[in-house]
């Protein structure tokens, strides 16, 4: 008997005027399977997942049937559903109910009315399994995002569910915390046999290990197969989702390779070295970096900063020069002080030593109206912190009354169709663009972006990249802080490594990532043994093609 049997399921929201969010879905999910559900934002992934748990199912018109262990889901008692179907959501913070880690772990068990003895045993068990013992007594407020999400997972696992449903659980986490989290999910699946149904933007970490991948588009299931076949299918269909596939898959089909498609970096390396043991052309030209920068848009000199008088320094002598008209990316670990650097430029944090110059003039010599009116602006990490009105249009009008200018910027950011919506009703990628539009209305010459690709899918990432390219053409200098090495490698002009409160190295992306062996892109890790300076999937495909040409 299948664990979940979905028969001919259709669903439409009451406000959708008959447009179906789910359209004739038929799926069967076996016990112990690990299933990746992928699709663009708005393809109905979340709507489908929520149908699998009655208390979370949205209101609307539903036809068809969902069977859980052979019983229609509505008939499964809510107590059983709570315990047996675990559901982890996107936002690590809002899911947490109580203020202490131990209390959060026990929350589900308290709800089910477990007795002390069982609760003690389960809570202890979970804390050990998830490595939570060290922060068991802490306040939730003092945890990092990764720890919070792990706590959410643990507190659900404490109820010993049969199925674990995860809706983009890592979209708010940095890459290291994200892969830690996904490894834990995989461990649960392998060691406990819990069925896992997961949606994710970052397929690199989970795609190779899934038993099955299901692709959704426009509320329909368009593919349901083992991961190795999915890449081929999407490539042949020229589906937008192909861009979300792991790098080895994109390189393989991009280069029109033959044989089995590689899924992991390791498989990709084997495939490359089999094809080209000794390639004729092995490197791509890498741009040299100019040592002398004339008229930098932003220059930082020896910035020192700490948040409290007796706390350790966050910035420890940050120096950098950003040439005018470039896209400058700052990469580095969590809590290294990247965002703080941007805040220091904006004057949200005041460095106690050092100088910030914007277009050659010290930042404290500017009047604030002069600085933020047409010179400098920042897009914060959470775009929601910029929305203060009921519709996107009103939010934009707060910045300027000039209708023409709003229309112009809305066109650049491709949000014309969203102007009437409430900012909170937009998807992550849409919110990001709406917030960007609001920031652009100040007509900045220097634009600071804090993690602009956080929580958005590969399709929106490309859109964002297009927008950034357009802005660069208009002569705007962009400084971006990011964890997303793939994005930086592809689109940045210069990349800096931030570590231990300092800017350590700065180089062009090819030379920067080409010379790194750990902190680099999947494409580089996959190809560095045969090619050098190939840092994006496109680079590898190009070199592959060049070699193909050279052999002929």
């Amino acid at each position, binding site marked *: 008997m299948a664990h979940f049997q979905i028969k001919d399921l259709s669903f439409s929201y009451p406000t959708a005027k008959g447009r179906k969010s789910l359209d004739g879905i038929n799926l069967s999910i076996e016990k112990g399977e690990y299933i990746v559900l992928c699709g663009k934002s708005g393809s109905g992934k979340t709507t489908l997942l929520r149908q699998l748990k009655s208390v979370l199912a949205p209101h609307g018109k539903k036809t068809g049937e969902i069977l859980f262990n052979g019983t229609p889901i509505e008939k499964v008692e809510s107590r059983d559903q709570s315990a047996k179907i675990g559901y982890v959501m996107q936002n690590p913070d809002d899911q947490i109910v109580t203020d202490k880690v131990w209390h959060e772990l026990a929350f589900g068990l308290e709800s089910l009315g477990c007795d002390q003895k069982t609760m*003690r045993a389960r809570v202890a068990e979970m804390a050990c399994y998830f490595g939570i013992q060290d922060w068991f007594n802490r306040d939730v407020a003092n945890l990092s995002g990764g720890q919070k999400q792990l706590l959410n997972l643990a507190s*659900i696992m404490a109820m010993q569910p049969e199925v674990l449903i995860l809706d983009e659980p890592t979209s708010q986490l940095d890459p290291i915390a994200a892969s830690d989290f996904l490894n834990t999910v995989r461990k649960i699946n392998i060691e406990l046999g819990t069925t896992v149904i997961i949606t994710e933007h970052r397929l690199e970490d989970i795609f190779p290990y899934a038993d099955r991948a299901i692709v959704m588009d426009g509320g329909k299931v368009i593919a349901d197969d083992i991961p190795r076949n999915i890449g081929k299918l999407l490539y042949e269909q020229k589906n937008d989702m192909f861009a979300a596939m792991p790098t080895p898959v994109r390189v393989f089909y991009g280069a029109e390779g033959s044989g089995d498609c590689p899924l992991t970096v390791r498989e990709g390396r084997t495939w490359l070295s089999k094809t080209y043991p000794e390639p004729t052309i092995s490197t791509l030209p890498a741009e040299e970096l100019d040592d002398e920068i004339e008229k930098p848009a932003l220059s930082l000199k020896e910035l020192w900063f700490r948040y409290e008088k007796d706390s350790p320094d966050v910035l420890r002598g940050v120096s950098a020069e950003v040439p005018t008209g470039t896209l400058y990316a700052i990469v580095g670990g969590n809590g290294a002080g990247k965002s703080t650097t941007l805040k220091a430029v904006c004057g949200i944090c005041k460095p106690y030593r050092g100088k910030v110059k914007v277009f050659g003039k010290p930042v404290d010599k500017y009047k604030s109206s002069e600085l933020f009116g047409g010179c400098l602006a920042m897009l914060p990490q959470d775009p929601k912190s910029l929305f203060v009105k009921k519709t996107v249009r009103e939010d934009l009008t707060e910045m300027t009354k000039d209708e023409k200018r709003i229309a112009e910027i809305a066109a650049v950011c491709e949000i014309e169709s969203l102007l009437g919506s409430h900012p909170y009703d937009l998807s992550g990628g849409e919110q990001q663009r709406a917030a960007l539009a609001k920031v652009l209305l100040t007509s900045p010459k220097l634009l600071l972006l804090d993690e602009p690709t956080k929580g958005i899918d590969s399709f929106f990432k490309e859109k964002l990249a297009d927008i950034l390219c357009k802005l660069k053409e208009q002569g705007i200098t962009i400084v971006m802080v990011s964890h997303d090495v793939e994005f930086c490698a592809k689109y940045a002009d210069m990349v800096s490594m931030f570590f231990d409160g300092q800017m350590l190295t700065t180089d062009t992306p090819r030379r920067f990532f080409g010379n790194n062996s750990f902190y680099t892109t999947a494409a580089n890790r996959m190809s560095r043994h045969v090619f050098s300076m190939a840092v994006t999937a496109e680079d590898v495909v190009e070199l592959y093609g060049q070699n193909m040409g050279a052999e002929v």
Partner: protein
Amino acid sequence: MWAAVTGKTMRYDAFSKCHPAVNFLFFVGAIGMSVVIQHPAYLLAGIITGAIYYLLLNGKKGWKTILGLLPMFMILTVINPLFNTLGATPLFHFGSRPYTLEALFYGAALASMFVIMMLWFGCYNKVLTSDKFTCLFGNLIPSISLLLVMVFRIVPNFIRKTQQIIGARKSIGKGISENATTKEKLQDGGTVLGSLTSWALEGSVVTGDSMRARGYGAAKRSSFMMYRMTGTDWILLAVMLVLIGATIVAACLGQFAATFVPAIQLAPVSWGLAAYTCYLLIPTALHIKETIQWHISRSKI
């Protein structure tokens, strides 16, 4: 409970490790008695013991609070005779109203009560963290205790989000400029508050989902107990009850009697003071005992 809100870490303290019921009973006793006792000897005992324990809990930073209480003490003391003109020994006249020595002493006694209460409440905040509080009352009123716990989480969240919104607005030139009028400041505050509200509402929908997804309302709730009564806890409880009992008996015998106006009349100091002081010294004694034990056990290694 502020300790839980600000998320400050605790210094090591033996009494804090006892069962919350023991902690709670102690503070009920200490604060309860300090409200009724006006006898200077007992007040002095209260201030000294309270201050010692407060310093043990807070370390050097504790001095700041204690010194900060001093001006409070002075003000309360000198104010009393302005309202209370009874007393046999006028010091000087304030217009037609006498300013008497007895009323001044009475003021000092009232101010001491205030200081003692502040000290013990300060200790209470450090010792009885929110989770201990809910552990105590969770079983009696589950829904209210959960509500409290959620509020503890929301307050720091709100502060953080407000700072985030203000920072974000500043970096697009929508911050409060140096020469903003009060009206502009108010308007800006309103905008931030509005944004904060929609943010919070959205968050609470997710929290609600997360609660229901984990079976909230699906069955009768139980409460997870982090603490168990140990042998030491029972002994402490017994000692505390004996000492409280003794103090109450002493009170009934009139040992605490003290009148200030119109003339100062104090009951002679007797064994009641010993019982009262011993009671208040319990946390400190426990602290010292554990420190000594620790050093002995370490020196044996």
